[in-house]
């Protein structure tokens, strides 16, 4: 068994090659599906550009100019070719390069997603550990009920309530908008806080319940009983022995949540008028801004893929059990 460590690199190579093939297939499928789907959508970007007064002839001319009239496979291959050289094309709506447009908005979404995950973890970890340690106790009852209630609040309701309470009534936070980091960290956080909390409302229970369940299960493990019979203090056991094995599933779930938020913070972004990716999607999809949509799809898919790879990697790096196998 101990010798297992020696063979690991060779095997991991094989595994990562398989993994890479898998992820490549995923990317291919996703972009192909996205391209096909957008292709099927009625209306064309030309209509959005030329406006309501455009004549059909004008639209056709514009379609030809942008190549929207070329057969689907040709356009897809062309696009993939561009992708490989790092060229995602230009937005039909704004004429700006897609890559730049996306990269400009990425930090906003990234920041509130990260912040939301951070807030969720900050709340979920202590509450999860302590409520799991005393199942059925008063804290546990309050926390479980609270988690259930929070889970049942739609994010748009949470957002409106937060705006009303913490922005309009008290004026502690701005009601909407964004301040980039260049405006100073404090200012940046002031703007990012409410959206992040609104997102965290829905995600905290997920992490909390995962951790609580894990803690309950871990507490039944022999090694916890062993530690208890050795007279170690309860807090020490909870945070050194019980939390540690749960850390990985927790980190994994946090990563999954993060990925989900990155792709799905549309509601919050539109509510708080954040210049993020969700807003971009919401604006580009109805306008059939195909290059931007494709760019977003690729970004979301790559994010998903990268998050998955990081989780995998995290497991091999962080979990001693998989590390040496």
């Amino acid at each position: 068994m101990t010798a297992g460590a020696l063979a690991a690199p060779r095997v991991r190579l094989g595994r990562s090659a398989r993994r890479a093939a898998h992820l490549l297939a995923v990317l291919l499928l996703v972009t192909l599906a996205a391209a096909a789907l957008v292709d099927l959508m009625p209306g064309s970007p030309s209509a959005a550009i030329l406006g309501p007064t455009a004549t059909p002839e004008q639209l056709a001319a514009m379609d030809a100019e942008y190549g929207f009239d070329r057969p689907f496979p040709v356009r897809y291959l062309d696009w993939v070719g561009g992708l490989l050289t790092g060229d995602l094309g230009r937005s039909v709506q704004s004429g700006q390069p897609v890559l730049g447009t996306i990269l400009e908005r990425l930090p906003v979404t990234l920041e509130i997603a990260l912040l939301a995950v951070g807030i969720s973890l900050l709340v979920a970890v202590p509450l999860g550990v302590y409520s799991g340690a005393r199942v059925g106790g008063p804290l546990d009852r309050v926390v479980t009920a609270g988690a259930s209630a929070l889970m049942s609040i739609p994010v748009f309701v949470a957002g409106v309530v937060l705006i009303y309470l913490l922005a309009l009534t008290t004026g502690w936070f701005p009601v909407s908008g964004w301040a980039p980091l260049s405006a100073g960290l404090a200012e940046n956080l002031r703007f990012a806080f409410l959206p992040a909390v609104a997102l965290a409302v829905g995600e905290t229970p997920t992490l909390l319940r995962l951790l609580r369940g894990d803690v309950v299960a871990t507490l039944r493990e022999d090694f916890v009983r062993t530690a208890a019979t050795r007279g170690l203090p309860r807090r020490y056991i909870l945070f050194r022995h019980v939390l540690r094995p749960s850390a990985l599933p927790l980190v994994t779930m946090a990563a999954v949540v993060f990925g989900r938020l990155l792709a799905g913070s549309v509601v919050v972004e539109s509510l708080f008028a954040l210049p993020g990716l969700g807003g971009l999607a919401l604006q580009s999809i109805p306008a059939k801004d195909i290059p931007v949509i494709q760019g977003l799809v690729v970004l979301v898919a790559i994010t998903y893929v990268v998050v998955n790879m990081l989780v995998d990697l995290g497991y091999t790096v962080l979990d001693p059990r998989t590390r040496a196998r």
Partner: protein
Amino acid sequence: MTSEPPTPLPRPEPPLLRVENLVKRFRVPGGVIEAVSRVGFTLGRAQTLGLVGESGCGKSTTGRAVLQLPPPDAGSVRFRGEELTALSRRDMRRVRPSLQIVWQDPRSALNPGRRVRDLVAEGPVIAGRPRAEIAGRVDAALAEVGLNPAEVGDRRPHEFSGGQCQRIAIARALVLEPDLLVCDEPVASLDVSVQAQVINLLQDVKARHGLSLLFISHDLGVVRNVSDRVAVMYLGRIVEIGDVDSVYGAPAHPYTRALLDAVPVPDPLAPPPGPPLKGEVPSPLRPPSGCRFRTRCPLAQPVCAEQAPDLRPVGDDHQVACHFSLKESPVSRSSAPSRTAVQDGGPR
């Protein structure tokens, strides 16, 4: 490199089961392990072959590979003269009723959602036996394993103890009237008091139906009790095979010897056993070169690292795979190194 010369068999008739050069590999995180490595043996009608060894030696895998569950990677399994490895899935299904298995964990092998009667009837139903006939056969099989069909028929597995579940599992196999019953650690999960019941039951049904048993167990006492012949496995290979009395009475392989010595005997007055074996079974990912036992063997010599010993006869129906078989060149046991890496602590 064949494992067992086919010639000197005590019985003139062709064996029920002949296994040759069986190889089964698994892909695991970290590489490929050869769980069963060129294993061969024969099993006659109404005979019991015990397959014994420590965990991870490949004995269960051998039993399943014989049943093509899943099929082996190489080698030959001839059952009643038919080459099972060459059969199509459909043909294999036709043969299956004759080749039954009793699993180690009876609870896990019984679908928890089904009633006992349906569980036992499943084999005949699959085999397409006439409906009318099945109910009677099921009742008979249940009765034979000591269960009252009227009482247990409509209950589900979780309502039974481990021993009773094993009885149901045996009834499930018996109802198909098999020729060969592979028993994969059938009593390992049972308490001593229940284990005896199941062992006796298996012996009874074997005698009654003229069954052949491939009896897989890590418990040397149990194997000795049920077997006519015994094969000892170590790290995917058979190291010794032969008549039970000669293997147990005069083990030719140092591993068999050490194994027998290590078995705790429920007798405070039993003679002190030989020196303990040092170390543990090496990883099957990188088995030692040559003789796989050499890293723990008190008799190991340079040749053991270079050349894997083949099975060779050391007596009537007794073969061993060792360059320095205890039977031929009796190395005195006391001359074997007695100090181990482990702190010495003999029994008081």
